[in-house]
């Protein structure tokens, strides 16, 4: 649905996006992660035909980004929630949306239906006649989200949709995004919230001017470290350590206070006998847990290496 081939964008001397090649499938939620200034917003602006490409190609559906005759068609297909809500502060929430509906040349009935549908979904229908300038940041963000959807776009670009929202509002927006996925829309999500990306994205692209990696959250996490097992004991002593050291199944281990962290090739198969051995050696086990790297660990490691 979205394809980039060696997409590059410079601002004068500054290289904002360098040789970006990726494919985003129809109906997926794609998370775009990267530090400040990594080129996320630039990529979105290029894909929405707002700014030009310096080198490379990009396609939205069957249309080519940067081709003048395709620009209007692409903009009609996509919805954009920019970094700043940018509502008309003197106009009502309803009028803000109505204006955009008209610009997308939506028939009046469909326009009205959509405005009501989205405002109700976002819990703002009762306040539709209120002036946007009087809304809180979160409410403005929701109106801007509705605005991005008003014309039923197939592809939605969301640039940090939950930035600055309270946890409840952020949760609501996330659930809303998942609803959109059910409607088979393609979602391109820029975010700094790793937990959010982990929870809702089908695939994640890590960018720092260049694309660092692109994979599902699971694969990203799996690819970096093998799985580990943590065993919390009451009494970690030398006898227990000696026993563990002699076990062939344990490839390596670390200790932290009374905690043993083991690296095992096949934990499902080996762990029961390891635990049995520790108990036999007099170990009193409190907890046994699997240690998985969080997306944050993966992110920090990959960005540091890049």
């Amino acid at each position, binding site marked *: 649905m979205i394809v980039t081939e060696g997409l590059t964008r410079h601002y004068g001397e500054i290289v904002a996006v360098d040789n970006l090649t990726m494919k985003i499938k129809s109906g997926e939620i794609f998370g775009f992660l990267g530090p400040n200034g990594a080129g996320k917003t630039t990529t979105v602006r290029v894909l*929405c*035909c707002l700014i030009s490409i310096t080198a490379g190609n990009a396609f939205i559906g069957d249309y080519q980004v940067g081709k003048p005759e395709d620009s209007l068609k692409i*903009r009609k297909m996509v919805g954009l929630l920019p970094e700043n809500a*940018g509502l008309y502060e003197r106009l009502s929430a309803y009028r803000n949306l109505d204006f955009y509906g008209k610009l997308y040349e939506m028939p009046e009935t469909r326009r009205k239906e959509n405005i009501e549908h989205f405002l109700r979904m976002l819990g703002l229908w009762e306040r539709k006649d209120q002036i946007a300038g009087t809304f809180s940041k979160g409410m403005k963000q929701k109106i801007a989200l509705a605005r991005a959807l008003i014309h039923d776009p197939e592809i939605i670009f969301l640039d940090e949709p939950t930035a600055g929202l309270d946890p409840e509002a952020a949760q609501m927006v996330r659930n809303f995004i998942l609803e959109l996925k059910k409607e088979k829309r393609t979602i391109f999500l820029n975010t700094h919230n790793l937990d959010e990306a982990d929870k809702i994205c089908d695939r994640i692209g890590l960018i720092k001017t260049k694309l660092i990696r692109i994979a599902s959250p699971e694969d990203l996490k799996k690819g970096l470290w093998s799985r580990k097992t943590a065993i919390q004991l009451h009494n970690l002593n030398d006898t227990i350590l000696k026993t563990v050291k002699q076990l062939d199944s344990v490839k390596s281990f670390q200790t932290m206070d009374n905690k043993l962290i083991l690296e095992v090739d096949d934990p499902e198969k080996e762990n029961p006998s390891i635990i049995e051995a520790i108990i036999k050696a007099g170990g009193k086990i409190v907890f046994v847990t699997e240690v998985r790297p969080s997306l944050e660990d993966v992110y920090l490691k990959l960005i540091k290496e890049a």
Partner: protein
Amino acid sequence: MKFSKAWIIAMKDFEEIKKNKYIMTTLILMPLLFAIIYPIVFIGSALAVENTDTSDLEAITGMVPNAETMTPQQILITYLANLMLILFSMVPGIIPTFIASYSFVGEKLNKSMEPLLATPTTDTEVLLGKSLAVFLPTMLVTYMSSCVLVVLVDWLTFPIFNRLFFPNIELLIVLFLFAPAISIMSIELNVLVSSKVNDLRAAQQIGGLVVLPLVIILIASLLNIFSINPISLLLLSALIILLDVGLLYLSKSIFQREEILTRWK
């Protein structure tokens, strides 16, 4: 280019303008003030001097068409009325700086340009829509206040001329050619200014420079270098229209998505 899209944008801007008390007050009061104060000062002073000697008027007699058939007072009034028309053209020059500073710089400061540009509209449609939203109210208040001006001048001068002084050819040229051209020039200058300036007041002050050509014309005619008559007004209008065309190209080259999002400060 679809005019309907430009019109949708213009309608949205009208609505915002209507809700802006500051602009609405300026829009109503300033032209009205001009339309009332100028006639009182100019025509009033001419009425005050009753026994004008023709010799005093020698300098301006040459500037007034058909002066030989007029009384000295009629000559004086005609001369001052012409100056007044140029001064009144400041209305279509200044009004756009108030509206445009809000609708262009305001939209930029408000960051509402990016979502607008992400819609399937062309740069020309957006520029045209936003320009219309400045032009139409400007011309509306210009014409409305010109009615006040005409009535006031005719009421004051009827005893002197025994006919209606306005409308005359000069007034018609100013209202239907010169004033719209000045207003368009002002709008285009404001587009250029708004790409560089991030402050409403500063935008208004720089945009206000548009009255400079008018001041020059005024001084030139006070110094009797330039005479205001239908031909010279037509030539002036043509010159401003030419300037408008040049400025249109400039403002169109500045009002482009890429420029607005990456280079506008």
